């Protein structure tokens, strides 16, 4: 079977993000063969697992045309709660981790309540939560760094079947999120709400409850991301998670999520996070000039988003039904 020009361009556009990723891997692989080792790829997944998990939660929010700016601060607040519980409250580590999840769910529920029930703009609500959560975290820690017992670090370094725990947690989260988005009524409702909330409401979808749920999911993902960061660092620093919301939004958008809602996937968010971490890792591996890092990362993000928007425009054009009008 021969591929027509239409098929080739269609195929190329459909898999543009994957091709970009392959290009990045190929370039760094040529510059440093050690970049291509299995251990290094596992390392990339470990390093980006926290951002990827939070980006999955962010994708749920972006699907509804919302945004959650508070994720980085929630990561910090939850970590501060866990650190204080263990160091000062002498709680067991497992209970401290449970406190983290409860903290994330609570912050997400507060965000969701004001967005869904009070009709406030997500940007304003989550921006307020950003300040409240970070301020509360600083208040709890008194701006002091906390160095945690080695038990935390063991959570991040333990391997099951040769796979590091953070990567396994990421796998569980992404598969669960994928199933929710593609196999459940709730998942389909999310896309409907994101595409047109008024039409979704008229179709009988409980829009406020749907919105409430996505912010709770985002809060929970932020707490799990905080858990992984905490385990990797075995320390709570006062700037933990600071600016993370931008990394997370970038990862979700790189993975194909639209800031205007209705578009995005869980695996896309992971791909976005992996892409950014791969570039960062590659530059570490080739010992690039530190001044070049932000330039290259910025260019790749720009290229990926440009490619994605071009792809969607072209695919929409290619798939448009050609209707011939009758001429008299």
């Amino acid at each position, binding site marked *: 079977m021969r591929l027509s020009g239409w098929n080739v361009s269609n195929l190329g556009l459909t898999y543009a993000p994957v091709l970009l990723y392959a290009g990045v891997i190929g370039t760094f692989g040529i510059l440093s063969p050690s970049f291509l080792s299995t251990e290094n790829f596992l390392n990339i997944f*470990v*390093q980006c697992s926290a951002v990827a998990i939070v980006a999955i939660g962010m994708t749920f929010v972006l699907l509804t045309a919302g945004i959650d700016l508070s994720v980085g601060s929630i990561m910090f607040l939850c970590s501060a709660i866990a650190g204080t519980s263990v160091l000062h409250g002498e709680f067991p580590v497992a209970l401290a981790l449970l406190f983290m999840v409860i903290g994330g769910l609570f912050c997400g529920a507060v965000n969701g309540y004001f967005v869904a029930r009070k009709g406030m703009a997500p940007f304003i609500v989550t921006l307020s939560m950003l300040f409240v959560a970070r301020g509360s975290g*600083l208040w709890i820690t008194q701006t002091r*760094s906390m160095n945690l017992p080695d038990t935390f670090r063991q959570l991040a370094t333990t391997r099951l079947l040769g796979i590091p725990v953070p990567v396994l947690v990421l796998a569980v989260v992404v598969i669960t999120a994928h199933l929710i988005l593609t196999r459940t009524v709730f998942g389909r409702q999310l896309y409907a709400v994101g595409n047109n909330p008024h039409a979704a409401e008229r179709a009988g979808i409980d829009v406020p409850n749907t919105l409430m749920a996505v912010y709770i999911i985002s809060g929970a993902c932020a707490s799990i991301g905080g858990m992984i960061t905490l385990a990797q660092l*075995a320390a709570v620093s*006062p700037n933990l998670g*600071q600016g993370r919301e931008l990394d997370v939004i970038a990862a979700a958008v790189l993975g194909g999520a639209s800031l205007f809602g209705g578009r995005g996937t869980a695996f896309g968010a992971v791909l976005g996070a992996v892409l950014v971490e791969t570039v960062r890792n590659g530059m*570490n*591996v080739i*010992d690039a000039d530190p001044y070049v890092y932000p330039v290259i990362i910025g260019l790749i993000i720009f290229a990926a988003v440009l490619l994605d928007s071009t792809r969607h425009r072209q695919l929409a054009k290619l798939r448009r039904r050609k209707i011939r009008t009758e001429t008299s």
Partner: protein
Amino acid sequence: MLRNWHLPFVVVLGFGLLSGCSEPSEQLRVGVAFETLQTEYWVASIEAIEAELRRRNIEMIEAVADNDANRQLDQIHILIARGVDGIIVSPKDSMTVIPMIKAANRADIPIVIYNRPPADNDGKSVTVVADNYKIARATVEYMAECAVKTGRKYKAMILIGDLGDINAIGRRDGFDDALRPYSDTIEVVARVPTEWSQDKALSGVTNALQVNPDINFIFASTDFLFPPLISALRTAGKYKKIGEEGHVLLGGFDGDPLAYSMLVEGYLDADGVQDVYFDSAASVDAVVRMHQNQIVESIIRDPGFVIHQDNLEEKAGQMWGAQIARSKDLTRLQL
């Protein structure tokens, strides 16, 4: 009639009354505006400034900008509007502080820049700053001497701070210049930009150790990055005490409580210390003298010092991190 022993007493009392008359009747008020309090160093600094002001019976008005240069400029305007007698500001960077200097100059209020020197400008200010280049260079030179003594070859890594921060650049340059004469023994194989972030430091160090597992000489541009560094070294099985097989020569900068603990435990070879007590006393002294229209030199440099295994006992008393660690019984932090 005055007896003989009364005379000195009366003279001293008279001087006291006269000098009291020459002092302004109202208590001085100094605004202290910090860009952030997000590391131990900044907290220790503001606490030391507060203690020095209290010792001199000066009221302190505190403002923290949470990493926002625009907010800090607003805070400076508010301090000026409140009629403070002087300002001590720890700015975000060397450029954003210039409008603050200009604003203080227009209001004729003395301004002291703490820890980060401003870029060239025609404003009037006094800067109190550690000699980042010199302290980093001395720290790395000590580490290099330790390396030479072993007779082995070394592969080095530096954790660089925010490239927009002049202090980070001074420390990086100090590292580079210190190692230049030792190029036959020590090869720099990794330069990890961290933006002063623990997350980025962890991934950068892990990646560098992945490609260069034989790295055995590491300088962190701030002690704040020790937790991720320790975590990465532990994961790689390379966090060993001095004298143990596979020990990685470690150096840092700041003099925080964790660094002190690592020195005591024998994991850290050397640490460049910024003398927080000198910096805070010099800042308060400068702002008071400027208020009294005295001439103050435009840059007051904190010479700092290097603390290492050989002078630990002697220098620990000057290390601010040691004081905090001892006062809070943190001499054995979780490492």
